């Protein structure tokens, strides 16, 4: 083992990832790789109808298929299947219909589970599924958000009497955090009103969801491709009535999530029910088509935005009315997604008055829930689009309008019109850097030249200045928003006798590189080698407590818990080192990986020396507990607020509607960076997902509620050939509330990029009279806008 000498070496270095070793050699532990003796395979029959009454199910033909062990419908397990949980009743009177994992009498979206087969092979299970006969009686289908909340609307849940799940309001005047938005709008020199539509998206993680439940032994062991093993354990226990200590959840290698695996799924409960019923290990792995139709979707909102301003460009008020499609039921955190967004509509700006009103609407579609950014990309899109409209109205450069409204670096910490306290940042610095890398002025000149010559390919420049809230979240804030859990995170450090260290984290990575970043932090803090740290996660028997990975919280919250645990280890080791060095513990200092007598650079003791002494425990003084292990739980005192400026140049072919991204620059300020390689990778991936919303992706239901984009043939994820290389850089405003200064990065790229791209397309076409194009901006839509705009 080597000792890190001198100042911190690991944090800030572009360490190649520990995780890669198994991933590039195919030695991974995906849930689908788990095979147990006697394991049965499940297949699920899904509703082909968006809304229908189930009048009869005949499972007998399926039972006759060779290899089939069991077939059951929702009615067969109605008494034991419980209801899927919703952890975020955003209002006291929120309508929360029961949501059985398998439909009992009525199906409410295409893809809802209707019956289940357990068989000795997956092939047999699939054969048997095809043999089940179901009679449906069609019911009226509710799909359109505005129609759904009309007085005479057909109902998704007839017994609830309404399709309005909740109405949630934030008013800065009522909250005492700002002025009256209505008054500001009524008295304004200028009001811009726009409607923006956030199309429905599908997270489309690459690893399909998979669950294995083993009921043999003393506990239920559940492997699941989930982002939230701890939350899943707790809620599985609550929903199924199984004592929590009899439930073990293991989230091994998980192949992507993006919020899409932040859910307690029907499939997890169905597999649990089957395993309990049969007393044998059971596995369910979805096909991609099942995934697209039944795993939750994201976005799907209609935003009506009113922005009031003075003629000098100063915004005086903002009012947002939102319709948010919940789908047929309330998801785990789905109702809260627009509420998270509510706090971000004012973005980086000093808006003095704000009102937000959101209605969560039931429709006959699969639920929506968290998808990368969860509420914040939607808010950022709307505000960054409409700020461009304001700039256009006033004949100002889009960046100039932003400058006139944004919070200046010397004004931090700044309390916003929503009552959030932004911690730190420097929007001017990030913007200047982005403009420099982009060649802003040169591209504006080229744009003008193309306009002057009437070039059929027009150049557009898109601006997106954003902030977001990471480090979800202070528990008291979550409590005030009626979220069901807290926002703390845990870390444990086990110092082994040889001085190697096992770190247990309550976060649950699925591609973010926690094993590497956590090792870097521990290496610096404890003076052990990077390779002498092993990071353990994703098994509730190892990591018994935690709140998992979503909302860019892992490092900004879990990283601080880890930092605090390191400090506890050092404090525990000091008296041990003092004993060895025959001095007073108060005279011990820990520097450069050595416990030393203060003022004496020689003869220090390492953590390994102390751990061996503690392991032997032969001659420790009375009162020293022979362990260096430590736990820490950290509840953040505030969110952290990364920010940045993204600039996009698009070439728009006015004859074909084709959009090409010519240049993309992302300058992000995510606080202090632990590993620049990982941060850059997160930005790349995030920007790609945001570009995909702008240009490619849309989940489409037809008028009968059939998902038309139910395969990767129809739901167009961008390929390598569809995306540009982007230029990234960073500014760094450390989070002042956090000892590591980290802010969070996972969602930044997605939040910033969508408005940058669409602003660029609209900017290219403004001289043709185009002021908006619905997303995704396909060639056809762009071409139609050009035709309409030019007419």
């Amino acid at each position: 083992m080597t000792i890190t000498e001198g100042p911190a070496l690991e944090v800030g270095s572009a360490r190649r990832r520990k995780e890669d070793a198994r991933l590039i050699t195919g030695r991974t532990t995906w849930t689908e790789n788990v095979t147990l003796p006697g394991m049965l395979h499940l297949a699920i029959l899904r509703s082909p109808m968006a809304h229908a009454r189930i009048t009869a199910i005949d499972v007998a033909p399926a039972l006759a298929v060779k290899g089939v062990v069991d077939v059951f419908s929702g009615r067969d397990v109605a008494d034991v299947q419980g209801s899927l949980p919703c952890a975020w009743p955003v209002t006291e009177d929120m309508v929360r219909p029961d949501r059985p994992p398998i439909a009992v009498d009525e199906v409410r979206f295409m893809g809802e589970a209707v019956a289940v087969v357990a068989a000795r092979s997956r092939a047999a299970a699939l054969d048997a599924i095809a043999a089940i006969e179901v009679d449906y009686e069609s019911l009226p289908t509710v799909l359109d958000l505005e129609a759904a909340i009309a007085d005479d609307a057909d109902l998704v849940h007839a017994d609830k009497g309404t399709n309005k799940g909740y109405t949630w309001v934030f008013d800065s005047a009522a909250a005492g955090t700002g002025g009256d938005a209505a008054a500001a709008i009524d008295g304004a020199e200028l009001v811009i009103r726009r409607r923006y539509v956030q199309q429905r998206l599908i997270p489309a993680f690459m690893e399909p969801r998979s669950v294995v439940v083993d009921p043999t032994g003393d506990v239920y062991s559940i492997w699941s491709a989930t982002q939230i093993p701890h939350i899943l354990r707790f809620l599985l226990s609550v929903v199924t009535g199984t004592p929590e200590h009899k439930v073990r959840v293991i989230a091994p290698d998980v192949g992507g999530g993006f919020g899409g695996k932040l859910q307690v799924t029907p499939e997890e409960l169905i597999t649990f029910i089957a395993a309990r019923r049969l007393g044998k290990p059971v596995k369910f792995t979805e096909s991609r088509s099942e995934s697209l139709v039944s795993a939750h979707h994201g976005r799907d909102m209609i935003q009506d935005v009113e922005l009031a301003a003075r003629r000098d460009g100063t915004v005086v008020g903002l009012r947002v009315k939102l319709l948010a499609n919940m789908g047929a039921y309330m998801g785990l955190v789905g109702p809260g997604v627009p509420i998270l967004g509510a706090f971000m509509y004012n973005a980086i700006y000093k808006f003095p008055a704000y009102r937000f009103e959101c209605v969560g609407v039931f429709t006959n579609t699969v639920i929506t829930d968290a998808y990368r950014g969860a509420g914040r990309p939607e808010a950022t899109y709307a505000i960054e689009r409409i700020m461009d409209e304001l700039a256009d109205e006033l004949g100002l450069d889009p960046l100039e309008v932003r400058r006139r409204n944004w919070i200046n670096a010397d004004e931090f910490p700044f309390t916003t019109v929503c009552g959030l306290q932004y911690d730190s940042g420097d929007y001017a610095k990030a913007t200047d850097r982005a403009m420099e890398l982009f060649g802003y002025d040169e591209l504006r000149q080229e744009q003008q030249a193309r306009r002057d010559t009437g070039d059929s390919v027009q150049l557009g420049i898109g601006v997106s200045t954003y902030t977001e809230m990471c480090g979800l979240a202070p528990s008291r804030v979550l409590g005030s928003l009626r979220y069901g859990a807290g926002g703390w995170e845990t870390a444990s450090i086990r110092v082994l006798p040889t001085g190697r260290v096992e770190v247990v984290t309550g976060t649950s990575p699925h591609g973010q590189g926690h094993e590497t970043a956590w090792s870097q932090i521990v290496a610096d803090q404890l003076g052990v080698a990077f390779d002498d740290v092993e990071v353990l996660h994703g098994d509730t028997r190892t990591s018994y407590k935690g709140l998992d990975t979503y909302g860019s919280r892992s490092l900004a919250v879990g990283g601080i818990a880890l930092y605090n645990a390191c400090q506890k280890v050092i404090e525990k080791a000091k008296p041990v080192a003092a004993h060895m060095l025959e001095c007073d513990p108060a005279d011990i200092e820990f520097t450069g990986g050595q416990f030393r007598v203060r003022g004496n650079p020689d003869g220090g003791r390492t953590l390994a020396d102390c751990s061996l002494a503690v392991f032997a425990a032969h001659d420790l003084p009375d009162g020293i507990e022979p362990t260096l292990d430590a736990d820490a739980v950290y509840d953040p005192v505030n969110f952290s607020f990364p920010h940045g400026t993204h600039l996009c140049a698009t070439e728009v072919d006015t004859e074909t509607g084709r959009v090409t991204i010519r240049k993309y620059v992302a300058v992000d300020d995510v606080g202090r960076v632990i590993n620049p390689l990982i941060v850059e990778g997160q930005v790349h991936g995030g920007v790609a997902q945001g570009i995909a919303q702008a240009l490619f992706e849309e989940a489409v239901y037809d008028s009968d509620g059939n998902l038309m984009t139910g395969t990767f043939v129809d739901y167009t994820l961008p390929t390598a050939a569809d995306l540009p290389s982007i230029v990234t850089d960073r500014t760094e405003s450390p989070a002042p509330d956090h000892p590591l200064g980290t802010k969070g990065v996972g969602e930044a790229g997605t939040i910033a990029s969508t408005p940058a791209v669409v602003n660029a397309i609209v900017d290219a076409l403004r001289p043709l009279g185009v002021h908006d194009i619905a997303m995704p901006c396909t060639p056809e839509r762009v071409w139609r806008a050009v035709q309409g705009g030019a007419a």
Partner: protein
Amino acid sequence: MTRVSIKVDGVDYEDDVEPRTLLVHHLREQLGKVGTVVGCDTSNCGACTVLMSDADGHQRSVKSCSVLAVQANDREIITIEGLSGPDRTLHPVQRAFHQAHGLQCGFCTPGMIMAAVDLLEENADPSEEEIREGLEGNLCRCTGYQNIVRAVREASAEIRAGHGTAEPAPPTPRAGEGETPDSGLRREDVPDETIPQPVP
């Protein structure tokens, strides 16, 4: 049931398969080659890409979800688990994906690496655009492809510099014979200089 004889990662296997069995399911479920994964059911994502010898014996990438196991009869398959050389060093493409941070969750990675190996076999010095077009059949949701492209470029430079050609394969063991059922790389055998490893 149909008898098939397939060499996978340097080992000869003979098995009875249902005629409808896809190669990917045969690899995963009968041979335990779970390094090759299934990401979709429409041959779009490429996560299951492996190398399969063609009639002339050249190794070409195929999506193993769109090949029947019986079609692989008498062919040689190389999966991610058998990509490393006989001396168990990483293939230059594997190494480059690690160096260039060309993966995050890693689910698409085996297929992406196999597709990249074939791409570089065809074109030793591809441009960025050629790499992007060459990998169009493989979807990644994490990386935005930027570092994947970088990894392929770095691998191509390394291969052209002569560090990438694998030694001739040793005699083929048969399943159940010899010490190891494949020529793959155990985690502890990954060289320290390439992959950070716990020191034993």
